[in-house]
Every structure is written in C-alpha cells, then in structure tokens.
C-alpha cells in the first residue's frame, strides 16, 4: 500500500515530530547513521582524520536574471547525502486530516463491507464449534460495532482498504499477515478502530488455533464463496 506516511493531525504539540506509519517504521534496515561527522576547528593540526572535513570555498554561481530568486535549474541540484534513491515519503509541508490515495489507485474498487464482514462472520461461526461462548459473543459484539461504524461512514478509506486486505489474508489462512495488518491498523488508526479491533485480533488468534478439520471446513466454504464473488464481480 502506498500510504506509508500519515499527515500530522491538525492539533500537534509544540515541536511535535511528524508521525510515521507502522509499515514505514518497521521497514528500517540496519542503516548506519549518515549524520555523524564533525568539522575540525580551523586551529587544529592535521586534516587526515576521518572525523574532520574542511569547509569548501563556494564556486561562483551563474548570475540569474532575477537577483532575488534562487539559482535556476540550469545549475544542477546538489548531490544528496544518501547514496540510495530518493525516499517515497513526503514532508509535513501541508497538514491535512486525511491521507490521499495515489491517483493510480482509481482502478481499485471500494471495499465491500458485506464481503469483508461475511468472511469474518464465517470464521466466527466456525470458531463457535470449539471456542467458549463468552469469547465468541464478545467477538460478535465487536464485529457488529465494526459493521455499524463502516455503514455509518465513520471509517476512513485506508481503514476500509486494510480491513479488506485483512479479511482476505484471514480467508487464505495467512495468520501472520493478518496479524500484521491488525497491528498496523491499531498503530496508525487507533481512534477509529480501538473499539472493535481487539475482537478481530481475537478472531485471528482463535481461528488459527482451530483443529485442522474445522479449518479445512472453513477454507472450503471460503473457496466456494470466492468463486461466486468472482462470478458476480
């Protein structure tokens, strides 16, 4: 998904840093810090140490026609510190309350609440055969909340999209992926999802622990429905 960066909320604390999405934070590798060098004071002896750098004298810039403007594009932009390609994130230049989906995503359909909820409810129904009633009822309560919130238009597009993805992963038995998506939703959109997400989390946990026969049963019915969805879609 493209939404790697969450625009800052309208009310930020004083000097509050920008908010990074769950996926972006976890994507970090074993990068060495780039910004670790220091300049040596002019009076110190010896410039061969790797921690010292001499200040360069600036070359003359071509005069631009407008003395008040920055150098025009004919001057190549300065080389970047990082060797890799430019990052895909954008800085908090324009605070907005919603993420924007890229224009290229127009071809994706709006997630269907019916399909998503029916996947989840099917999993729940299978769980009822071996999991305690109390737990199943608690999960059901929350799935209803999810349903209501969705239909009432209270869930933002990224949340709907990710719930769709989660339900697909659950259907396919990809428990870890489903869990990752649940975590990313809790981290990035806690206000929208906290009331019901723990029910989805529990559903994933209980479903993955179902005995193989029940799981098979669940996956068989999922496959049948998938076919019928394709026929209709």
């Amino acid at each position: 998904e493209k939404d790697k960066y969450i625009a800052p909320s309208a009310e930020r604390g004083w000097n509050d840093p920008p908010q990074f999405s769950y996926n972006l934070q976890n994507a970090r590798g074993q990068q060495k810090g780039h910004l670790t060098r220091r300049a040596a004071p002019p009076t110190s002896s010896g410039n061969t140490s790797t921690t010292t750098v001499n200040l360069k004298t600036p070359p003359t810039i071509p005069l631009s026609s407008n003395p008040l403007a920055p150098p025009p594009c004919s001057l190549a932009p300065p080389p970047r510190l990082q060797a890799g390609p430019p990052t895909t994130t954008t800085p908090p230049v324009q605070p907005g309350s919603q993420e924007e989906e890229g224009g290229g995503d127009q071809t994706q359909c709006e997630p269907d609440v019916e399909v998503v909820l029916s996947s989840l409810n099917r999993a729940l129904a299978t769980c009822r055969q071996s999991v305690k009633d109390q737990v199943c009822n608690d999960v059901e309560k929350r799935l209803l909340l999810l349903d209501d919130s969705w239909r009432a238009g209270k869930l933002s597009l990224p949340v709907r999209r990710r719930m769709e993805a989660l339900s697909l992963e659950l259907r396919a038995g990809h428990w870890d992926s489903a869990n990752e998506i649940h975590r990313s939703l809790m981290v990035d959109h806690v206000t929208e999802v906290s009331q019901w997400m723990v029910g989805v989390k529990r559903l994933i946990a209980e479903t993955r622990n179902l005995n193989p026969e029940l799981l098979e049963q669940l996956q068989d019915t999922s496959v049948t429905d998938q076919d019928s969805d394709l026929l209709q879609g």
Partner: protein
Amino acid sequence: MSTYQEFIQQNEDRDGVRFSWNLWPSSRLEATRLVVPVSCLFTPLKERPDLPPVQYEPVLCSRANCKAVLNPLCQVDFRAKIWACNFCFQRNPFPPSYAGISEANQPAELMPQFSTIEYIVQRGTPAPLIFLYVVDTCLEEEDLQALKESLQMSLSLLPPNALVGLITFGRMVQVHELSCEGIAKSYVFRGTKDLSAKQIQEMLGLSKPMASGQQAFCRYDHVPHVHPALENDPLFLQPVHRVDMNLTDLLGELQRDPWPVPQGKRPLRSTGVALSVAVGLLEGTFPNTGARVMLFIGGPPTQGPGMVVGDELKTPIRSWHDIQKDNARHLKKATKYYEALANRSAVNGHSIDIYACALDQTGLLEMKCLSNLTGGHIVMGDSFNTSLFKQTFQRVFSKDYNGDFRMAFGGVLEVKTSRELKVCGAIGPCVSLNAKGSSVSENEMGVGGTSQWKVCSLNPSTTLGLYFEVVNQHNAPVPQGGRGAVQFVTQYQHSNTQRRIRVTTIARNWADAQSQIQHIESSFDQEAAAVLMARLGVFRAESEEGPDVLRWLDRQLIRLCQKFGQFNKDDPTSFKLSESLSLYPQFMFHMRRSPFLQVFNNSPDESSYYRHHFVRQDLTQSLIMIQPILYSYSFYGPPEPVLLDSSSILPDRILLMDTFFQLVIFHGETIAQWRKAGYQEMAEYENFKQLLQAPLDDAQEILQTRFPMPRYVDTEHGGSQARFLLSKVNPSQTHNNLYAWGQETGAPILTDDVSLQVFMDHLKKLAVSSSA
C-alpha cells in the same frame, strides 16, 4: 593514525567496547599521570546479526574464586585436552563433550573472531514477560483519551503469552482484577498511607510470596519459574491472549479521577502509594522474573508518601534556585522514598519506566532513581496527545531483525580482569551486587566496591562506563605475555524468554610509559575518553555542587594538555596537540556548556531527564549530546558537517542540527525569503524544492529510529525557535569580544560565556605556564 582508528572501530563493531587507552601503561603511577583513567564504554547486548548464539553451556575455570569463561586468550593443549585460564593460570581439563576437539576442529569460543560469543542456556521453565501499567487518571479529558488509546494499542504489540496488569490512581489507588467474564473487581487503597510489602500482599489476597533469600542470584544457579500459584491468585496479572478484550474495554471505560479539584488547587495524585502497590504486587507474585512497571503520569505527586509538592497551586514546584537555597521542602524525603522502592525493585529484577507528559514538572528529580537504578525508560513530553509520546511509546515495543523485542531483562554483568588491573566501578543504569573479590579496587569511580552489577532492563544500545585501575608497581617488569585482559560476562533473559549468557573477552598490550609514551598517546581514543570523563562529571554533579564539577573537569583537561601538549614553556602560541587528542578540548568545551552540567537554564526535571539519557547511550549518541552535529545544505555541493559555530549560520544555507533531544532545521535568511515567495512551487526552480527537501530526508532516518523520539523544530532566521540553534553554537561572533576571567584565586575557572577560541587561548596559557 589510521591503524588505531581502524583497530578501534573493529573492536567496537565486534565486541561493543571502546577503551580510553588501547595501549595500557604498565604501572599504577604512570597510569595516574595519564589523567584519563583506563576505562571503557561497554554495550553488553550490542546488536550482532552475524553472531548466532551457541546452544551449550559455557566452560568455566574450575578455580572457585575465578570461574572465568573459556575464551580465545586461553592456552590450549589439544592433545591432553587441557586448557589454561588466562586470568588465574589454573589448568583445567575440558569436559567430556569436548573430547573431539583438535587444532583443526576448535570450538567457537576459542576462535579469535568469537571474542564475543553468546550462549543459550536451558534451565528451568521459561518465564513470561510481565507488563504492569500504572496509570494516573488526573489528566485532562483529551490527554486521558489519547493515553487510553495508546495503552489499547500497546496490547496489540505485546506477545500473546505476556502477562499484563493494570493499576489506576488519583486520590485513591485501584488494583484491577482482569477476568474474562463477569463483573470487573478492583481493590482500592488509600493514597495517603504507605503500606509494607507484606500488608499489600495480604490485602491483595496473594499466596505466600517466595522466600526472600532468592534475590541476588549467584552465577548460573538461578532458576526462573512461573509461580505455581498463578492459577489460585486473584487475577491481577493475566496473559494478554486471555484478557485482551476485557482489558481493552476496561481501558476504554477509564474515567478521569472523580474527586473534584477546587479552584487554585492541584489534583490529589497518590503516585507514591501507587508505585508501592505495584512493586509489592510484583514482589509477591514474580520475584526474579523480567517485568516492567510502566508508570504514566500527567503531573507531580501531591499527596501521600513520595509527594513532591502540595496541592496549592500558589506553591510552585521546586526549581534549581529553590534547591540551592535549601528551600525544597519535600525533596529529601521524597527522594529517599523512591530510592527505597527503586532498590527493592532492582533486587527483584523488575524495571520501572516513567512516561511523564505535562506542561509543568512532574517530579522526575525525585523519581529518576526508579528508572536509573532499574534500567527503565524516562520519557518526557508535553501531553499524551502528541506524536512524540505516541511514537516513542510504540518504539518501546520495537522488534529486531528476528522479530523479537529489543528489550532484555534481569541482566547481571560481571567483570573479570587479569591481575594487573582492578575494577573501580561502573556508571550507567545499574545497581551494585556487592560482589567482593581480588579484582575489586578500593578506589571507587561511579558504582564501585563490586565486580558485579545488575541491569534489570536493557536493550541493544544500553552502554555502561567501566573504570579500571592499574595496580602494578612502578618499575615492576612488564607482565609476561605483554597483555592485560578483561572479560565481561552478561547473563540475561532474552525477550523470547530464553536465558542467555554473552561473554566478551578483550586484551590490550602493556607498554612502559617512560619509553613508549608516544605509542600510548597514539592509542588514545579521544571520543571514548570524552564520554567517559563526561560520565564521571555527571556522576559527580549528582552528588556535588555544580561549580566544583566544572573546576574538576577543567583541572583534568589542563593536566592532560600539560602532559601531552607539545609546547615551549610559557609560550602559548607554540602549543600543539597531536591528532589523537586534537578534538578532545573541544568536546570538553561543549560539555561544560551542556545541559548535563549547566542546570540553571533548565528545570530540575529537565536536567534529570537529560542526564538519565546521557549515562546510558552508546558512544555515537553520547557524543551527539555533548557536541551536537551540524550539517549545512546549499547549492554549492553535497551536505557537509560544519563547525558548531555562529559563523556557520549563513543566509543561503539550510542547517540541520541534531542534539539528540532535538532536530532543528534552520533556514538562512535568503532561503527563508525564497521559501516565503514560493519558488519551490515553480517548475524552473525544482532544484530549490530539492534543496528544501534534502535535510528533511536526512532527518528522517533519525526520526524513524531514535528512542526517545526527538522534538522537531522547523525554523528560520528571525524565528522564535531559532533560539534552539543559537544557544548551542559557539558564540564566536558577538558585539562584545571582551571576556572577563573567573576568579584568579584558587583553581582556575574558565568562564562559561567564552567562545571556543577564547577558551582554547586560556587553556593554552594555563597548560604552558611554568607556575601551574
């Protein structure tokens, strides 16, 4: 000398060690003349993705008062299957399982590239991780809502088998039972009365706690266990997977403390009793198991034991000025109270985090020992409803390349030395285990009088400063084999609940200081030395008066310059320092001006916060704190580091400053004008847009990874927030270039307002003076 730089870097990469000196003076007298003690920064759990742990127990020397671990420095007789301990020279037979070893088939722990090696030891049942949330409900509605959401979010980040518990407090303290069915019960304590651990455990209906004798464990005998009474005890600590739905609801339903707060008053906050109950609860159920108490507070303790300020708003919370005038009523008593709790917690291996979000102080000065002694975090913010808090808190649960938490518990560090060295002490987030022995020096530096310390909670960047003393007598021959050795043995509980032992064994050559002083000098690691001396300074500052610490720091610097400077007597202009020391005076200059030693620009809480982070970070981060990094961005070339000096502030540059606690992006006057005029939006000035973007991209890696998350300041020439930059840079250019000396009598003090140039001039004068 590039050889030593490479050597230093390789050793840090492999062993997580940076020594102040990499050639050791062979006598006590010569070592003291070097001014900076033989000492090292050591990161016990440095991330080593290339180091797979081995699945067997370490082999130990059989001598009862040695027990060093088999390591690459040991001499081995492969034929006779015997090894000689390099610390005590005892000859030990290999265990039967080593029968197959030979020159060509050596166990990993003998190979030089495994100078650092990690063992997984199978012992007893793995104990679950425990997280006990202690939550202040005297918060503004918005803040409380944000905190509740963060806590709910954290439940998704905890491993399913972790145990979790909840205590809320305001005027009263409530311990919540976590059940998966029926009505939620809670046990209420009055916030004004302190209770003993026994009373708390009785009132909570806990079974008889473990015998108190099982506290400081001796090496390799410790067996962690899940308390068998878990099934029968009231349900205060339960596995996440069982109670997550109910706990999520419980958190969602938390209300602000119901007791009304009259006009002109602070809310009654019983932090002291809340912590006492938390510590007592854990003590009574899971002593000697990894646990984190996570305290969330929105203001200072105002009632009961450990109160920091009264509830009258017209009485402000103590400032440094008040403390200096001995006008801080509650300070001593509160500090003592929290120190007692901290020590109890440390003995049990439980760490305490403090997440303090408020616009005013919250009492970190009194409570800091809770985290400093146990290795817990202190996070300080303005409100729980900020991305700084939310993301910093998320990062507590960050995972490494294996998908495991970066936190470790129950760390015990033991240091062994060859007999020419003794251990003077450690500075970092630890407590002494009072382990006496032949390698313990009588001279204490930091937490001394021991060769073992407990670090209840640690992560891959936790770094301790360790200080040594050379004990060889002057003119005694350089020891046989020519090398001194130190072994660091760290036992700990990994976040995946395995018990592990990491062993690092290092050696350095002895050198006769009289004939080889130049070699010793070239082995000096000025970066490590600066941080190690700075930690000593901060340690002193916590117990002594401010000006004395500055005097001490200055005196050490002058002595070092006198010893190693090249100069003609009484001729300051002739003074030169070799490359291995050239940056050291600058580090000391910045250290003197730093918030770690200059307290009057900050509140006592802020000073405590800065110092807390300073004495536990690795070398690179510590140096950033001492002397912030400054990079300059322009059209003229790639971004480059520039002097932390007012002369680096130019109209056509963008500056990025990293102080560790803040990231400041400062736009020079011309850049700011261009930005305001909107040139970055025009296609022909795409390069200007890229220039504006460059520092943001470079800052991103820091923002994404640093713990705690720094404040982020985007400012420009003339902006009010420019003061962050202006206060840090060396004021080499001011309207007034006349500076007065400090007092001429007594030890010289270099005044605080001087520029680096003036500081260096004075330093040189003092170093070359024959009357010094």
